């Protein structure tokens, strides 16, 4: 840790870890309900466990993004954060928002609008937090007078995240119109601006971990951003299938979401190229595992499995089945969970006392158990979904009868889910095992990799 204010990242990460653990509890609970009967039918029905599961994901992933940014920006800007106090106020507000929303869901207090269930007061706090965050980051960069491409892409991603949240605050009389704008927030977050954030994290990590040339990395970052937006913006169309919008969204969705893997291939190639050029030279090989793993798993989960059911002729049959759950789990995990765990693994040796730079054995167990578990879960959803599509959609078997026929896949889901949760548990335990180090120390300086210094002049804006 070179800058004292970077230590705020630790608390953002700590909050993320706590919420990640809680998300697992509600995920496993939801999975067991697929087997049924449900003894908690009137205490904690599926709709409640599911909404908490997805909302916790959003809250902790965003908290980790913010933490990662607070870690990254001082180092890129070579100065302390504008205000540490604001960063803590923002974190406290964020936690209060998340916790009250979750407690509200237990009592069915929410808007019931998929993925945007947060009640209006919570939504306003989200806006406030984003405002504080952008102000703080923006001021830090402004004061430093040094603005790298990685930062620029990151900042643009974060600003767009905030702007795209605005449609979620509005009320629509027409259900179809409300669906139309829901995806402005959710899709353009997930497949647009979050991708930018992920790309800039990845570029940052690869520059640090592999010592890759910044000029080359950032050039590719632009290409990736271009590909993300070419495919991502018009790819929103794949959420407009069969919901009552004009028909031209169908071929558009097919065409542009078929292009989405291009950006993901770009990221994977970038990661592979960086590793090839410089080898696994950086001592923090665990963080490198997560970073490269993220690029590869995103390509698999978001790219390949998304492509599998994105063409309208196929989607006509698979739409609204467990095939979507297959894609959703693998994509989110690869793109957003793994990149955050990469960032955390990278920052952690500097943020805690006594942790070996190369990662612990437990850290590696966490990596491989999670990977194996999530791969198994993806296969469980896939096999269940294929069965469901065939029996229910093609053969015309009733929904409830078809669900009974695919029970064995739900058993597989619970088994592999348990493996995954074990991996998550190990990661969280490993996180909290070493006490935080909140002072600057010189020994981390020499462990941080060398960085080419040629680019600074040109990167300045």
């Amino acid at each position, binding site marked *: 840790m070179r800058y004292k204010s970077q230590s705020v990242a630790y608390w953002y990460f700590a909050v993320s870890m706590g919420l990640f653990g809680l998300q697992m509890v509600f995920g496993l609970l939801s999975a067991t309900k697929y087997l049924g009967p449900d003894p908690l039918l009137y205490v904690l029905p599926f*709709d409640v466990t599911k909404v908490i599961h997805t909302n916790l994901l959003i809250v902790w992933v965003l908290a980790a993004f913010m933490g990662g940014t607070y870690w990254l920006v001082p180092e890129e800007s070579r100065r302390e954060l504008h205000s540490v106090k604001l960063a803590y106020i923002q974190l406290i507000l964020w936690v209060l928002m998340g916790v009250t929303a979750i407690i509200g869901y237990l009592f069915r207090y929410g808007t019931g609008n998929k993925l945007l269930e947060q009640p209006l007061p919570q939504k306003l706090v989200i806006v406030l937090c984003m405002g504080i965050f952008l102000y703080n980051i923006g001021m830090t960069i402004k004061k430093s007078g040094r603005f790298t491409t990685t930062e620029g892409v990151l900042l643009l991603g974060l600003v767009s995240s905030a702007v795209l949240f605005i449609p979620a605050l509005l009320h629509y009389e027409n259900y179809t119109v409300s*669906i139309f704008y829901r995806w402005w927030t959710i899709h353009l977050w997930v497949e647009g601006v979050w991708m930018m954030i992920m790309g800039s994290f990845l570029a940052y990590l690869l520059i640090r971990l592999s010592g890759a040339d910044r000029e080359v990395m950032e050039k590719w970052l632009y290409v990736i951003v271009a590909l993300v937006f070419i495919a991502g913006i018009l790819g929103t169309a794949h959420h407009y299938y069969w919901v009552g*919008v004009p028909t031209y969204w169908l071929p558009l969705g097919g065409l542009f979401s078929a292009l989405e893997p291009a950006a993901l291939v770009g990221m994977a190639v970038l990661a592979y190229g960086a590793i090839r050029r410089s080898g696994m030279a950086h001592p923090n090989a665990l963080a490198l595992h997560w970073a490269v793993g993220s690029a590869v798993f995103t390509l698999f989960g978001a790219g390949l499995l998304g492509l599998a059911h994105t063409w309208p002729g196929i989607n*006509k049959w698979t739409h609204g089945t467990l095939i979507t759950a297959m894609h959703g789990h693998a994509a989110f995990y690869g793109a957003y969970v793994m990149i955050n765990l990469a960032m955390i693994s990278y920052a952690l040796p500097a943020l805690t006392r006594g942790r070996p730079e190369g990662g612990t054995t437990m850290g590696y167990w966490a990596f491989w158990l999670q990977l194996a578990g999530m791969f198994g879960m993806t296969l469980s959803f896939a096999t269940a979904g294929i069965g469901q599509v065939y029996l229910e959609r093609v053969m015309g078997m*009733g929904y409830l009868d078809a669900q009974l026929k695919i029970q064995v896949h739900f058993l597989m889901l619970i088994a592999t889910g348990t493996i995954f949760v074990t991996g998550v548990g190990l990661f969280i335990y490993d996180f909290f095992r070493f006490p935080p180090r909140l002072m600057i120390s010189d020994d981390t300086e020499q462990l941080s990799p060398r960085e080419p210094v040629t680019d600074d002049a*040109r990167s300045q804006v």
Partner: protein
Amino acid sequence: MNKRQTRIFAIASTAISALVFLILTVDSHRQFPELTNAETITPQVTHGKDVWHKYNCINCHTLFGEGAYYAPDLTKITQHRGEAYLKAYMRDPSNFYDEEIHRRLMPKQDLSEEEINDLIIFLDWVANVDNQGWPPRPILVTNSLAQHTPGADVTTDPSVTPVESGSDPRALGEKLFNSAVPSCNACHSTAPGVTMAGPSMAGLVGRTEELLASGDYGGEAADVEGYIRESIVSPSAHLVPGSMFSADGVSFMPTTYPESLTEEQIDHLVAYLTSLR
């Protein structure tokens, strides 16, 4: 390409994509009123939508295939189930399905009658939105296709709750539809357009009303209930056109029901069948 060129590429392609997207959004707004029958969005439809949100329905069910995958899609439900059935169902789902058999059950939601009413009106609005003809074939909540294993006792069809004598007559009728000997559902589907050995029961009420008004009807019934009762006890009184349904003026449907079913059971079947759309 150098870094500057890639930056221009990124900015230009993003701007073009965003511009196209915005133009199409404007055009979609031009078309929404017609595609979604916006003039039929009454305060009741809006209230029904609020009910749909208030009870968090979308985190189990799907609408337009969007939502969670734990419970059936409801996009076209009002075309499969009549208002009377849906109302009785919403009052207490456990009268219709058994958690021990399906391993899942919808919790009773305790909606007010007004909420139930408006929710159904909202769902009927959804069913009529022009959504490119999805789903390509009807998504059924349940049918007996799954249960017909060789040697199985068809009288204990588990696709519905083992209802008790005090249950809703429509629920009793649905049970009977699947369990009478021979079972009705062996030949009659309740899905639109799914013709098995007999005509589909979907659209029965509307078709019968047209038939009774048309003058082509030769039986003795005066109303829809009477027609359905007559079809059960004396299937040949009126023949539905089609060489797969009858020959030489005699229906292929069994004539054993007046003996095998009690008068009360026939009432239940009539109550159930008149509740289908």
